[in-house]
């Protein structure tokens, strides 16, 4: 008889453990959010600001500032505050002369929308970000409470079974247990099919209430979360041997400032400038106030510059904004450079070998670049390589003018290979383990002469390889 008692007790306890385990697993949940990487062209420095995940509120926010080749040593002051909330406590990050990561730790008091101010003494970049909280869906909450109730009722049933004078009394807690369990299981099954709420800061505007309880957010009346296109306004002001670009983003419908840019491919805005000689500048303007962005171009060339900006608005969709004006720098333009076509060349000390297959309009063209000799490329903007395409370009005129009218501006990626079973998000740029071969596949819609640039990061320096590419007519002739 003792054996029977022990068996029953053991079975009940194991059942209880299963229930509690399930409930705990549900309540625990993974911390919300991940690291945010934002490329910033702040003054003369090209920086990557990494906001590490905030695990608890209030709690520490670790910020890594990655400098690149040619970054001057100095100090950055970091502050975190609610938008418009002024200055919080500061952290000073000392930037060394060696490119690489530098650290600072701040404190975050509340969940919700925040701004990180990065101050180099001359200009303050304001990076909006959201401190999320892990939330349970209503169904998950019900599952959790159901399992807890079932567990408690199971204990009561056990106690009643052992102590009650009348057998039927046991049926009360036992029935309650079955009911609670049914609720928990039903809710668990439902929670798998419950649609996730709109993500504050991504799909809809981030307010503190929306972040704390995304399920309370009224779904927009339409399923279309997208927003109007953006108008890009451009002014260029000279400051000695550098050029300060002032960019204003306004809503294409209302004309109001656009201040809902998402971090897309590790930047709020990717600004691509084609210079009169055929050079490429790819910088990441800093946000200085709502809708206002600034970037500095070093060693500007005289002549016309063509400009495009890649952005993504909250609510979805990447937009390529081509400035209809570009900008001009006074002076006589230098003659355009003529980069080599496919083949081997040396780019600032890095051997690069480019091969092209296909190169017919309307068919996929594969561009393969061998950058360096070993697998030592670092991810840049979350990718092993970027390919910028501008064309077709007529010969015999400054490239900036030709690019201003070029029908095609494109941007393809070579992605970081996936590591099966890897956790903790994609590798950051301190991992120098990719390449040396990067491959891009792009379908050129029109035949003609293109300029393409392959961009990679190696030793914290950007390697930009220009390639002249002639794309032949497709099978069906020119569309």
């Amino acid at each position: 008889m003792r054996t029977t008692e022990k068996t029953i007790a053991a079975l009940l306890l194991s059942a209880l453990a299963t229930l509690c385990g399930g409930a705990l697993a549900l309540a625990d949940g993974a911390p919300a959010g991940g690291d945010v990487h934002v490329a910033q062209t702040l003054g003369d420095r090209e920086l990557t600001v990494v906001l590490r995940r905030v695990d608890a509120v209030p709690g520490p926010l670790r910020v890594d500032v990655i400098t690149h080749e040619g970054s001057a040593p100095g100090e950055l002051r970091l502050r975190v505050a609610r938008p418009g909330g002024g200055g919080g406590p500061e952290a000073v990050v000392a930037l060394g002369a060696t490119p690489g990561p530098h650290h600072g730790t701040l404190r975050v008091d509340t969940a919700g929308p925040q701004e990180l101010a990065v101050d180099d003494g001359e200009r303050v970049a304001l990076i909006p970000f959201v401190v999320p909280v892990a939330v349970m869906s209503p169904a998950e909450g019900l599952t959790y409470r159901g399992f807890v109730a079932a567990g408690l009722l199971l204990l009561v049933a056990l106690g009643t079974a052992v102590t009650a004078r009348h057998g039927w009394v046991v049926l009360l807690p036992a029935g309650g247990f079955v009911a609670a369990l049914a609720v928990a299981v039903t809710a668990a099954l439902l929670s798998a099919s419950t649609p996730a709420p709109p993500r504050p800061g991504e799909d809809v505007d981030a307010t503190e209430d929306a972040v704390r309880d995304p399920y309370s957010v009224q779904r927009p009346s339409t399923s279309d979360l997208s927003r109007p296109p953006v108008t890009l306004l451009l002014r260029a002001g000279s400051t000695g041997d550098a050029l300060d670009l002032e960019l204003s983003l306004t809503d294409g419908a209302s004309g109001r400032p656009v201040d809902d840019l998402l971090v897309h491919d590790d930047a709020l805005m990717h600004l691509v400038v084609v210079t009169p000689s055929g050079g490429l500048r790819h910088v990441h303007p800093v946000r200085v106030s709502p809708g206002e962005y600034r970037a500095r171009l070093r060693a500007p060339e005289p002549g016309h510059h063509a400009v495009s900006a890649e952005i993504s608005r909250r609510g979805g969709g990447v937009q390529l904004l081509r400035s209809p004006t570009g900008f001009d720098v006074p002076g006589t333009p230098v003659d355009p450079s003529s980069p080599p076509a496919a083949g081997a060349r040396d780019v600032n000390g890095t051997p690069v070998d480019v091969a092209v297959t296909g190169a017919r309009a309307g068919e996929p063209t594969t561009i393969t670049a061998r950058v360096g000799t070993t697998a030592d490329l670092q991810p840049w903007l979350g990718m092993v390589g970027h390919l910028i395409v501008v064309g077709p370009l007529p010969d015999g005129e400054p490239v900036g003018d030709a690019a201003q009218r070029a029908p095609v501006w494109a941007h393809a990626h070579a992605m970081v290979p996936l590591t099966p079973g890897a956790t903790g998000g994609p590798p950051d740029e301190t991992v120098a383990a990719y390449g040396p071969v990067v491959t891009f596949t792009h379908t050129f819609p029109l035949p003609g002469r293109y300029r393409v640039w392959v961009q990679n990061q190696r030793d914290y320096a950007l390697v930009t390889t220009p390639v002249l590419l002639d794309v032949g007519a497709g099978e069906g002739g020119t569309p």
Partner: protein
Amino acid sequence: MTRRWMRAAPVAALLVAVVVAAAVVLFARPGSGSAPAALEAATSRHGVRLVVDAARAGTTGVDVEVSGAPDVDEVRIEPAMPHMGHALPPIPAQRTGDGRYRAAEVPLDMAGQWELTVVVDDARGAERVVFPLLISG
């Protein structure tokens, strides 16, 4: 005391049965992605049947059966992930028999929605047919 314990036995058995059933319902996941996925479509000149060995992340073999107009010069597969704006280099499929082609190694390394475009090249030009394909993790 022992009699009361005995009385608890059926209750306990019932509870354990319910818990086991619940655990099975909660934690059992239907398997997916390991069986071959077969898709069919037609162009104006050809019927194309696509069989993907394993529709899960990784390198997989893909069989293409082409019916209709004969004298096919070449069959290629152009994989792309529209959501990522990412295209892979075209992969030629080897002829394995009458109207049968196989690409042994198609690197579909990422889970998600893919598009496999099958290009059928013959004397009259290239025809393309697009197969949407969900790749599981």
